[in-house]
């Protein structure tokens, strides 16, 4: 398994490289630059500043300079948040985003799996219908509607939770994590439910029942193992969804995470920050997919690593 991991990791390097190259050249297509936002500044001075940051060198040379920096773990300075390096900004924002994202993934997986199993076992019962209703809301209503709605209900009217704050308290994590988790809860629970129904009909589950080991053991040991596979496979892309959703959650709940940096860096034409965060997101998505594939391999004995 370790050689498989190593091979996959090495194999992802060309993907990341392609991602960087495409992003680098695409972001230059947008008109304007980091210093062109102020009309009072003369074009000569804009050029002066751009030269100071080597923005008028040939593009391939700029890419090479940046890439060289990456190899030395230096992602360059931020052109807009000039007090910080890109690495510093990532170091500040990433743990926060990861924390919210990880909680959201954990919550959505657990709740989604439980709801899905419950729905499958008591089909068309009250649990199944309420789970289905939650699923529909989670899929149909976008998180920039759900987030402020939760803020109004729990923050403004009930005053149970803070409206938008980020510190060490657990209260400030509840609403953002819930908002981010809801779409995934929806997908996972529906996926789990149908997978569970299908698995419960298989011959091997019938055999397990025939062995008289008890209904719970049959469900949890036999049916679940097979039913969980599609959910595990979904978790890779789900991570990507969660990461991109974090931008909205961070804006609505004023969370200092990396998602907000990312969106603003595009509007600001903050090239090093765009590249740094793109590289980071790419690495995260690739890592998530790798972990998912390994998990599937561990869970399904028919998959072997060549």
């Amino acid at each position, binding site marked *: 398994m370790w050689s498989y991991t190593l091979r996959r990791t090495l194999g992802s390097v060309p993907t990341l490289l392609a991602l960087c190259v495409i992003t680098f050249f695409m972001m230059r297509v947008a008109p304007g630059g980091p210093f062109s936002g102020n009309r009072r500044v003369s074009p000569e001075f804009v050029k002066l500043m751009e030269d100071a940051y080597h923005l008028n060198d040939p593009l391939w040379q700029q890419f090479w300079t940046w890439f060289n920096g990456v190899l030395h773990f230096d992602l360059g300075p931020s052109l807009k948040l000039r007090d910080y390096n890109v690495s510093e900004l990532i170091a500040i924002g990433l743990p926060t985003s990861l924390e919210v994202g990880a909680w959201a993934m954990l919550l959505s997986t657990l709740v989604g799996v439980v709801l899905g199993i419950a729905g499958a076992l008591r089909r068309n019962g009250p649990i199944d219908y309420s789970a289905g209703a939650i699923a529909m809301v989670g899929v149909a209503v976008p998180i920039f509607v759900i987030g402020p709605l939760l803020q109004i209900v729990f923050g403004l009217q009930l005053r149970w939770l803070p409206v938008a704050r980020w510190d060490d308290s657990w209260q400030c994590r509840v609403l953002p994590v819930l908002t981010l988790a809801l779409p995934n809860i929806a997908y996972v629970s529906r996926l789990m439910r149908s997978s569970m129904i299908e698995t419960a009909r*298989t*011959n091997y589950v019938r055999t397990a*029942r*025939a062995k*008289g080991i008890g*209904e719970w053991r049959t469900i949890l040991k*036999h049916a679940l193992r097979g039913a969980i596979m599609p959910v595990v496979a979904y978790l890779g892309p789900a991570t990507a969804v969660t990461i991109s959703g974090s931008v909205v959650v961070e804006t609505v709940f004023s969370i200092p995470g990396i998602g907000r940096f990312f969106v603003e860096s595009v509007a600001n034409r903050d090239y090093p920050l765009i590249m740094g965060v793109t590289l980071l997101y790419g690495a995260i998505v690739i890592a998530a997919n790798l972990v998912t594939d390994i998990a599937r391999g561990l*869970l399904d004995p028919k998959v072997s690593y060549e």
Partner: protein
Amino acid sequence: MSAEPAAAASPNRPVLSVQDMSIQFKLPQGWITAVDRVSFDLRQGEVVGIVGESGSGKSQILLSLMGLLAGNGRCSGSAVFEGQQLLNRPPKELDAIRGSTMSMIFQDPMTSLNPYMRVSDQLTEVLTAHQGKSKAEALEVAIEMLERVRIPEARRRIRLYPHEFSGGMRQRVMIAMALLCRPEVLFADEPTTALDVTVQAQILELMAELARDMRTAVAIVTHDLGVIARLCDRVIVLYGGRIMEQGSLDEIFYDPKHPYTKGLLASTPRLDEKVHGELRTIPGQPRAAMGDFPGCPFEPRCALRIDRCRAEMPALLGDDKGRAVACHVSGV
């Protein structure tokens, strides 16, 4: 004449006694009867074969006895095993019995074994659940049983996953799994149908040997008369969910009475026949919803039918040694 197959006549008392068992399924068009008032006994150490065409409801009999009937089915009647009623019991109560004193092997061992679990786990969980053995003890018993079913290098192989076994070996594993707790009764649903012919013979031989050694009563359901011939002591012929004829192996094979039985035997190709012309068949098709008609279910296809056959269901009549026929025209 009494319709009861003899119960107390033989020195072996019945381990399982099924009386008037009927199974119905709810379909969009309403309830249809799959099995209609079937009764039979199973004695200690005997192998009973239930033969009939596909879709004749024979598998459902076994599944109902094991409490595995589908959600849209219902069964009525009585099935007494070890002094307890089996039919319509809550699953929790059946769990004490199935897998330990009463077990079942299924048709397709590839899909009937859990592909995500090691064989060792699938075997040991039967022992830990029913006999409270520790994992280590259970493993030893399981390895011993695998050796008994003639799986070479059992100690190494037990840790493999089902897909790493061949078809024949998987069925051996199933058999081992079913016999771990030395059940009184073993149900087998088409155990060799999914295997190729050479392997079939081995499996059948193994089953015969084990049943004999462990004094397990076996009820085997199949459409293959060759399997019946190899394994069974007694045969029950089912058509349209009803017993058409029953008797000992020799009686059925060498002296069949019911037109359907005769047709079945006649349509089985034999090695010692000269090959000429087409295969013999029983004309006509099995009809759907067979149990819901008042007359004999075989009547549309029967060469010997008379008017009475359509109007009235023939009763199963026989002697007190277990030989019986349900036909207006032929009798014991």
